[in-house]
């Protein structure tokens, strides 16, 4: 039991956080709870504190909308929050799509689909930054928030809180895409919101730190990591994971049997020296 907890503690915590958030949002619409109202695009915490999706606000700005004070305040709060806990902590701790893509990834490993498909991935992980840029261009040209009208994240989240409609199809598409087409396809390659939080996460405080002298080169961490390129230092040098693409999901920490990985607060002074 203790090892089970040890090997899955962050995963269990993440699922707990993800599901509780969904329940709180759902309760707000269904039973009038005021703990967490709205949805991931924009929320009110305890009927008072606003919190808004900075990427949605960016698209609104590009589309030519007038940004209200409430919205800017919400964006500022969300930005500061994710600067503290790690930009893509949103992706692994909050976003409901994470449960779908984790399930696809788990099944992919169990079924050994990688071996059928070969290791060569047909798309670059930089695709998300292109899509991010493209979404802003389209928002500007079309005068609407381009990603918000296609985003499966909001579709699914809104669906759970306000009624799903055909939102289940979006879930299925992402599951099948990640399972059969592209490993870590949606979250690791396509999603511009993940791309946005990657850029934000470059500056965030909480980091995974690698202790090289403890590492036995088992590489379990790289197998479970959905963004394995961020663990390039494993077994080579003691370094913090400084890439914004790390989602702080902490799967690497819990699968490591040798205490070579753990959370740490970014040392700002040290980073200045290394130029990061």
């Amino acid at each position, binding site marked *: 039991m203790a090892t089970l907890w040890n090997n899955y503690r962050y995963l269990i915590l993440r699922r707990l956080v993800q599901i509780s958030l969904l329940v709180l949002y759902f309760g707000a*619409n269904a039973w009038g709870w005021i703990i967490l109202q709205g949805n991931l695009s924009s*929320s009110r915490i305890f009927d008072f504190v*606003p919190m808004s999706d900075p990427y949605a606000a960016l698209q609104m700005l590009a589309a030519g909308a007038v940004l*209200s004070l409430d919205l800017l305040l919400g964006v500022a709060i969300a930005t500061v929050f994710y600067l503290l806990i790690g930009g893509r902590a949103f992706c692994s701790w909050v976003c409901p799509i994470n449960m779908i893509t984790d399930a696809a990834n788990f099944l992919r490993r169990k079924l050994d689909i990688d071996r059928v498909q070969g290791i060569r991935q047909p798309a670059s992980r930089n695709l998300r930054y292109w899509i991010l840029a493209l979404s802003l261009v389209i928002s500007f040209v079309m005068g609407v928030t381009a990603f918000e009208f*296609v985003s499966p994240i909001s579709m699914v989240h809104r669906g759970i809180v306000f009624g799903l409609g055909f939102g289940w199809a979006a879930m299925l598409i992402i599951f099948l895409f990640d399972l059969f087409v592209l490993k870590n396809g949606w979250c690791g390659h396509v999603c511009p919101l993940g791309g946005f939080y990657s850029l934000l996460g470059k500056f965030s405080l909480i980091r995974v730190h690698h202790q090289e002298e403890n590492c036995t080169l088992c590489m379990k961490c790289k197998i479970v990591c959905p963004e394995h390129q961020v663990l390039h230092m494993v077994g080579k040098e003691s370094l913090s994971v400084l890439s914004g693409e790390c989602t702080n999901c902490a799967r690497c920490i819990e699968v490591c049997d040798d205490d070579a990985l753990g959370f740490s607060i970014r040392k700002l002074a040290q980073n200045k020296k290394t130029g990061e």
Partner: protein
Amino acid sequence: MSENKHEIKKKKEPLSDRRKFILNMARGVGLATMGGFIWSAYIDEATASSLLLRPPGAIKENDFLKTCIKCGLCVEACPYDTLLLAKPGDNKPLGTPYFIARDMPCYMCPDIPCVPVCPTGALDEASVTTNGVLDIKIADMGVAVIDSNSCIAFWGIQCDACYRACPILGEAITIEYSKNERTGKHAFMKPVIQSDVCTGCGMCERACVTEKASIFVLPREVAQGKAGSHYVKGWDKEDEKRLENATSKTTTTELSKDSAIDSLNDGLEGY
């Protein structure tokens, strides 16, 4: 055969860095253009829905689509379950709030709870405020329209369901009396919509007794015509003022130099 292939492969020189760079740039730009057009085309279709009723205080539809963040706070604030968020499959701009008056109209709450909660100003408090106080009566969600062919009051049957249901009783819908020539001894009591008073709440559409509502709410731009600026109400002093700075332009069409007979016979060479 396989040897031949090998030879061909060998002959191909490796791409120069410059060529690689240019080709990769071309791929990037090409893919972005392709994706961009597909995406834009989809967005254009997905946001084209002109028959939607928005919550009170909603700004102009074009601005609404760029300003609404689709958070659903207005939906949660509505005490009557009137407001809905467009789901995939509803064929309406995804995630934006709307209501279907026949199912659940806007009950015109005096405190308008759906408007002040809007974080982005897509629902504009100022547009439903008179002298610093929230005033639902100036909301403009749409305007009711009557199909006089299916409205039974226009047949001569007594029905004032819509008139009685109207929250701005006697102002937004009035009753016009006229003689029923068919029976000779009854009156028509025809409902008439005063479109400048009507807020488009849809209470009348909900109350209408015909199988499919004969009075229904449409967005104002859809339901109303436009006379154009060249019509001036001569009897209206305010409207007359528009003529004060009017300018005129005389255009002359050059007369044809051909004689009228030539013109009439034009194009008859073949006969």
